[in-house]
C-alpha cells in the first residue's frame, strides 16, 4: 500500500516540472524565468556543481583506493553520466550529509545527489527529480545466530531476558520502520555512520541491524559474518534535489535519467557496485509513464536490458577491508595533507583572533560607554553560542542576505571571530594585572593614553598571558575540525571519511591522533621557550 502511494507521488513529481515549465513559457521572452536561472548558468559555464558527502561511504560516494583525494561510487558514475547527457562537466563539491540541502539553498551547489530519499516535506521546499534508485530496507544478523531467523524473532527476548538490540542509521527511514516494529519489545539504537551498526552486530554488541539495500549489498563482502534476514521491506526512492524554482534543470535531469535507464546505462553502473536488483524494475514503470508528461523523446528510446557484456572498464567494484601497515602506507600521506589544511586554518585565524582580542580588551577597559557596551555584548554573544552555529550562520545564512563568502574564508573568519572573544577576556585579565603605577609612569612621561596602553601596558600583559593563550591556540587547533560543516576537509573530516570507506577505524584513529599530537606538542615547547625568554624581563606576574 505504502509503495503504491509512493509510486503515485513519484509520478506526480515527475510531471510537475513539465507542467510548470509549460506554464512559465510565456514569461521567458522578456526576462529569463526564475526556473531558467541555474540551468542557464550551467549551460553557460559548461559545468554542473553537485553536492555530496564522501563520508557517506560505499557504494554511494567514497574515496578512491588508488587516490584517496578523489571520489568514486555509483553516484559519482551517475553524475558523470548525467554530465555527458547534459553536455557539461560535472564538478563534485564536498558537504556534510545533513547540510547538503543547506548548501543547495545557499547556492553553493546546483544539485544534491547523495542517497536523499524522496519525502513530501523535502519536495515542498526543493525541486525533486524522478527516482534514480529504488531502495528498500534489509534486516541483517550474525550468520551463527540461530535466535534470529525472521522479523518476529526480534521481539523475543534472549534466554537471559535481555531485549534484542537493533542498530539503525539515525534519522533515516530505517529508524522509523524499526521503532514501529519493535514497540517496547526490542531496543532500537541510532548510529551516525552507515557501517558502524554492521560492525557492532559483527562484534556481538548488537543483535541485528536494518540497512538500506545498497549498503547491505555493497558491504556484504566486508562483513562475511552477517547474513540477510527475510526479504527487503519498506521501499523508497532516492532522488536528485535542485533549488525551488529550478524546474528546467530538473526537467533536463529527468530526461537524462530516463534515457540512461532505457539505454541500460543505469543498470550497468549499478551492476558494477552489485546493487542492481529487481526493485529497480519499478523505474521502468515510471519511465513508461514519462511520455504522458512531455518526455516524449526520452520515452521513445528502445529499452535495452543491458545484454551487452560488461567491458574491462565495468569491472565490479566491491568493498575491501584493509588492515595494519597497508592502511598506514596507503593513507598516511593523504592524512598529512589534510593536516596541512588544519595548520593553515589555525595559523591564519589565531593571529587575527589575538589582534582582535587585544583591541576588544583595550576597548572594554579604557573605552567610553558607547564602545564598552557593544564590545561586552559581542564577547558574551560569541562565548555563549557554539562555533559550529556561527560558521553555519556565515556560510549558509549570510548568502540569503546577499553575502556569499567562500568556505575557506568563512572558516578563517569564523574561527578568528569566535576566538577573539576568548582572547579578549584573557588579555583583559592580563591588562588588569599590570600595576596602576605603570600607567601613571607612562602618562607622567608625557605619553598619550593610547601610547601608554599600547607601548607600556599591553606589551607587559602579552607576556603575562602567554600560558593561557598557548592553551587557547591548541584548543583552536583542534576546533578547526568543526570547519567540516562549511565543506572543508581538514584532518578530522578526512579521518571520518577514510575510516568509513576503509573500515580501518583503529589505524586511521591512531594516525590522526599521532598527527594532532605531533603538531600541537612543538607548540607547547615553543610557548615554553618564549615564556622563558620574555619572562627574563621580569614582568610582575
Amino acid at each position, binding site marked *: 500500500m505504502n509503495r503504491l502511494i509512493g509510486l503515485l507521488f513519484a509520478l506526480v513529481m515527475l510531471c510537475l516540472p513539465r507542467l510548470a515549465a509549460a506554464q512559465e513559457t510565456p514569461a521567458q521572452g522578456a526576462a529569463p524565468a526564475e526556473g531558467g536561472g541555474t540551468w542557464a548558468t550551467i549551460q553557460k559555464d559548461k559545468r554542473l556543481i553537485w553536492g555530496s558527502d564522501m563520508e557517506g561511504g560505499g557504494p554511494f560516494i567514497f574515496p578512491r583506493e588508488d587516490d584517496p583525494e578523489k571520489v568514486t561510487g555509483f553516484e559519482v558514475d551517475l553524475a558523470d553520466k548525467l554530465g555527458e547527457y547534459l553536455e557539461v562537466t560535472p564538478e563534485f563539491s564536498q558537504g556534510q550529509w545533513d547540510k547538503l540541502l543547506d548548501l543547495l539553498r545557499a547556492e553553493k551547489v546546483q544539485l544534491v545527489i547523495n542517497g536523499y530519499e524522496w519525502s513530501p516535506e523535502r519536495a515542498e521546499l526543493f525541486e525533486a527529480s524522478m527516482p534514480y534508485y529504488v531502495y528498500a530496507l534489509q534486516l541483517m544478523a550474525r550468520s551463527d545466530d540461530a535466535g534470529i531467523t525472521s522479523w518476529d524473532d526480534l521481539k523475543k527476548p534472549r534466554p537471559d531476558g535481555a531485549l534484542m538490540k537493533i542498530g539503525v542509521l539515525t534519522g533515516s527511514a530505517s529508524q522509523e520502520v524499526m521503532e514501529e516494529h519493535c514497540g517496547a519489545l526490542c531496543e532500537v539504537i541510532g548510529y551516525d555512520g552507515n557501517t558502524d551498526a554492521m560492525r557492532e552486530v559483527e562484534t556481538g554488541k548488537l543483535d541485528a541491524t536494518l540497512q538500506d539495500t545498497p549498503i547491505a549489498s555493497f558491504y556484504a563482502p566486508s562483513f562475511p559474518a552477517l547474513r540477510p534476514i527475510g526479504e527487503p521491506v519498506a521501499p523508497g526512492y532516492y532522488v536528485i534535489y535542485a533549488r525551488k524554482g529550478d524546474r528546467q534543470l530538473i526537467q533536463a535531469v529527468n530526461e537524462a535519467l530516463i534515457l540512461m535507464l532505457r539505454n541500460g546505462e543505469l543498470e550497468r553502473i549499478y551492476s558494477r557496485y552489485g546493487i542492481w536488483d529487481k526493485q529497480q524494475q519499478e523505474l521502468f514503470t515510471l519511465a513508461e509513464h514519462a511520455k504522458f508528461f512531455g518526455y516524449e523523446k526520452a520515452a521513445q528510446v528502445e529499452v535495452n536490458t543491458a545484454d551487452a557484456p560488461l567491458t574491462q572498464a565495468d569491472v565490479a567494484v566491491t568493498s575491501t577491508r584493509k588492515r595494519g601497515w597497508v592502511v598506514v602506507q596507503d593513507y598516511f600521506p593523504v592524512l598529512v595533507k589534510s593536516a596541512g589544511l588544519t595548520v593553515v586554518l589555525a595559523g591564519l585565524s589565531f593571529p587575527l583572533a589575538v589582534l582582535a582580542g587585544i583591541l576588544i580588551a583595550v576597548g572594554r577597559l*579604557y573605552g*567610553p560607554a558607547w564602545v564598552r557596551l557593544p564590545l561586552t555584548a559581542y564577547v558574551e554573544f560569541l562565548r555563549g553560542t557554539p562555533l559550529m552555529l556561527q560558521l553555519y550562520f556565515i556560510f549558509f545564512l549570510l548568502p540569503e542576505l546577499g553575502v556569499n563568502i567562500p568556505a575557506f574564508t568563512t572558516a578563517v573568519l569564523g574561527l578568528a571571530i569566535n576566538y577573539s572573544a576568548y582572547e579578549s577576556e584573557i588579555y583583559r585579565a592580563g591588562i588588569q594585572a599590570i*600595576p596602576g*603605577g*605603570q600607567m*601613571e*609612569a*607612562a*602618562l*607622567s*612621561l*608625557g*605619553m*598619550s*593614553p593610547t*601610547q601608554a596602553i599600547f*607601548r*607600556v601596558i599591553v*606589551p*607587559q600583559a602579552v*607576556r603575562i598571558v602567554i600560558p593561557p593563550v598557548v592553551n587557547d591556540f591548541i584548543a583552536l587547533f583542534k576546533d578547526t575540525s568543526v570547519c567540516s560543516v562549511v565543506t572543508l576537509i581538514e584532518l578530522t573530516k578526512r579521518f571520518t571519511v577514510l575510516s568509513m570507506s576503509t573500515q580501518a577505524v583503529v589505524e586511521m584513529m591512531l594516525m590522526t591522533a599521532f598527527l594532532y599530537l605531533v603538531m600541537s606538542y612543538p607548540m607547547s615547547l615553543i610557548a615554553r621557550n618564549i615564556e622563558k625568554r*620574555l619572562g*627574563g*624581563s*621580569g*614582568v*610582575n606576574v
Partner: protein
Amino acid sequence: MIHVDALFKRHGELEILKGISLTVNRGEVAAIIGPSGGGKSTFLRCINGLETFQGGAVRVGPHVLSANLHPRKDAAQLQKVRKVVGFVFQQFNLFPHLSVLGNLIEAPMLVDNEPKESAVARAVALLDRVGLLAKAEAYPRDLSGGQQQRVAIARTLMMRPEAILFDEPTSALDPVMANEVLGVISDLAKADQTMIVVTHSMRFARQVSDHVHVFAGGHDVEFGPPDKVFGDPQHETTKSFLKEAGKD
C-alpha cells in the same frame, strides 16, 4: 613656574585638600613635609594631572589645569602639562619589560619623535651622571631599589622637564640607598632644576630646599625658608610633627 591656586580636592565625603595655594619659581626647590594623610602626595599628583580636583587651578608656565578635568576627554591638555613636569614615584615604576636603556629612550622616541641614536646618546650621558652606565643593558628586576630610583630620575630627565615632582622618593629605600638617591637630587638642585619634593627626610628638606611647606589636614599650615620653619616653627602642628620626626 608652578602656581597652584586654592586647590580643593574631595574624595567622596572626605575633603583631602582644602584650598591650598603654593608657588615655586624657576630654579627653586620646594619641600613638602608633614604627617601622613595630610594631603602631600595627593597635592603633588594633582599638579601633573594624575588626580583630578574639584576646585582651584594649577598653572605650569603657559599651561593651565582647571577643576574637574576628564582623564580621557581632556587627555591632550593633561599631556601638555606632563610634558613639562616630570614625576618620580615612591615605587620607581620602571617598565619591567624594557632594559634600563629602553626605559630611558622609550618616551623621547615616542612622544618627541627623537631619533634613536640621539636618544641613546643622551641616555648614556644621563646614566653616567647617575652612576649607572654599567647597568644600561640590565633589566629593572636586576637592580637594587636605589639603582632603580636613580634610573627613574634619569628617565624623567630624558624628557627635559622644566620641573620635577618627587613623591617620597626615598621612603621605600634603606638609608644607604636613600643617600645615593638624595645625592642625585641634591646635584639637580645645585644645577638649578625646579623641583617639588615630598619627603620624610627632614635633614634633606633643610639642606636642599628654598622653602618648606608643612601640610596637615589638607592645609598648608606653615611655610617659609627652611631655617625659619625648622629653627623657629610657629604652628602647633609643625612643632609636634618636628618633635616626633626628630626622634627618628
